[in-house]
């Protein structure tokens, strides 16, 4: 059953929810982006509908709520280890379909690939997801081609239509709240994108052999190895451990993990100075195949959810989707098709 609420009513719902939950949604940080007076859209705690940014795509994904950029794992004193504690409240996360699909990828790695991750899991269990209806794709989106344009496994759905809030809830307590503050609407279903300005097609016969293609060479020069694509990606989950002792008292310290990027120098460093994938083109190849080949080999479905954030965030205007569309030709090249 769907409900229609005024924004005021919705804010009351949010207030009610706020008693139990910390509510996170894409939010505008005015002037918070790289360049002067450019807003950044990223996840933050919200208390009102107005704070939820629905017009613009978030530059960074919800990912950082489950896998913070920097997360303390343990506190150390001289002889003791103290596990960092988890946030007290439960969490509601507003996200679009692509991101909801990304949650599955995070779960895949953090709950299933090898042993489950303690820190992820204890957070993950606290989270409810509210799907933000997505009536139209942004320029760089290609969710339809990645099959992530539609999601049903939400705890609630949310959409702003003509200044009014439409909600649907699967969570029984929430349903009650909506009934209280809104009026029922027949047949509400969150919008989803059915076509995207950006299209991608991934060759059916894509194989690791594509590594030998010259298609990657371009990125030796173009890519600066900054890692923005990874940090913005809702499915990139690599991290690096850091141990420190505190400046104020070296007897105490902590172990953290921070987000890592396979594009950034140092990612593959091994003891003694060796490293792999020194060239940026190699890193690009590694990342691309991870997103549209390796993960699928391992887990049966594509990792990339087609949100396009990597395209949007790249300071060098390297387009991931454009690379995907070059793979066919690259495969031809390594297969020895085409001109020769």
């Amino acid at each position: 059953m769907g409900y229609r609420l005024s924004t005021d009513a919705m804010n009351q719902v949010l207030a009610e929810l706020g008693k139990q939950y910390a509510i996170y949604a894409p939010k505008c940080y005015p002037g918070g982006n790289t360049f002067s007076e450019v807003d950044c859209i990223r996840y933050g705690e919200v208390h009102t509908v107005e704070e939820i940014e629905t017009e613009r795509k978030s530059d960074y994904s919800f990912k950082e709520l489950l896998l913070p950029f920097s997360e303390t794992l343990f506190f150390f004193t001289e002889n003791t280890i103290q596990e960092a504690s988890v946030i007290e409240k439960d969490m509601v996360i507003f996200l679009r379909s692509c991101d909801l699909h990304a949650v599955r990828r995070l779960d895949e790695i953090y709950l299933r690939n090898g042993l489950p991750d303690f820190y992820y899991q204890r957070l993950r269990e606290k989270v409810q997801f509210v799907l933000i209806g997505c009536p139209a794709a942004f320029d760089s989106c290609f969710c339809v081609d990645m099959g992530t344009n539609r999601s049903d496994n939400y705890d609630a759905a949310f959409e702003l239509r003509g200044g009014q809030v439409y909600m649907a809830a699967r969570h029984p307590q929430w349903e009650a709240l909506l009934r209280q503050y809104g009026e029922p609407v027949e047949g509400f279903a969150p919008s989803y994108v059915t076509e995207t300005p950006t299209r991608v097609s991934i060759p059916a016969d894509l194989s690791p052999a594509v590594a030998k293609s010259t298609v990657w060479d371009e990125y030796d020069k173009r890519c600066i190895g900054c890692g923005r694509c990874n940090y913005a990606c809702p499915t990139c989950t690599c991290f690096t451990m850091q141990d420190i002792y505190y400046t104020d008292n070296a007897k105490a310290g902590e172990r953290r993990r921070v987000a890592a990027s396979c594009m950034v120098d140092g990612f593959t460093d091994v003891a003694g100075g060796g490293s792999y994938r020194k060239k940026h083109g190699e890193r690009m190849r590694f990342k691309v195949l991870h997103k549209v080949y390796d993960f699928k080999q391992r887990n049966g479905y594509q990792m990339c959810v087609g949100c396009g954030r990597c395209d949007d965030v790249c300071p060098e205007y390297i387009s991931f989707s454009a690379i995907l569309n070059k793979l066919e030709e690259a495969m031809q090249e390594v297969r020895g098709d085409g001109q020769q």
Partner: protein
Amino acid sequence: MTVSNEYLSHWAEIREVIPHTAIEYTFRMAYQGAVQPGQFFQVSIPKYGEAPISVSGIGEGTIDLTIRRVGRVTNEVFERYAGERLFLRGPYGIGFDVELYRGREVVIVAGGTGVSPVRPVIEHFYWHPELGRKVSLIAGFKSREDILFAEDFTRWQEQMDVILTVDNNNGDPDLRQGLVTEYIPALAIADPARAAAIVVGPPAMMRFSIQALLRRGIAEENIWVSYERKMCCGIGKCGHCKIDDVYVCLDGPVFNYTRAKDLAD
């Protein structure tokens, strides 16, 4: 559902510190539990960090961890002495299954610190010669000063074909000179088709050694390699060890060459 926190390490006592070179020591740690040669531990000192270290020896209630002093953690480890403690978690990964080599000729080619992960395999056949057929060991180091497990080599020579080579032996009759690959062609292998080979070392050394072994008629499926990566988690999360669709920490570090040959860094 509550899961255990795999990132929690446990104190382990240093039983013995065995220096090899100025920057390479073996720490013999108290340890109870099953360990496979080629597996690794995450060794840490709180506030200094954690590092994946291969098991270089498996004893009664001990494991050996041969550590090279190359960074913050290992620097700090080198400040520890017998009787002190290190943090360990593991073992992680898939190691060498010595059962696969039972009764076969085994050629082991190792370079530098690559000797560490294969040492338990060698030791296995050294102490259980009845389980093997013949072990040939080619080990390469930069120089005499870099040789690890020098006494072990002397001991292993009693039973095995051991070729210990350095870049320049400066006329030392105990040492060969040159790359390990140079000694593969002349290696006495009775039945190459059934022989097993283990190759561990720097990437280029591994690549050329495998080529040489293949040329000797050793089958791809009888070659095993071990990959070195700087895992942070050991449990398939941190991503540092991923190669293609493989997580070295989960699916390796030891791979049969039929799998490894397609892996592209």
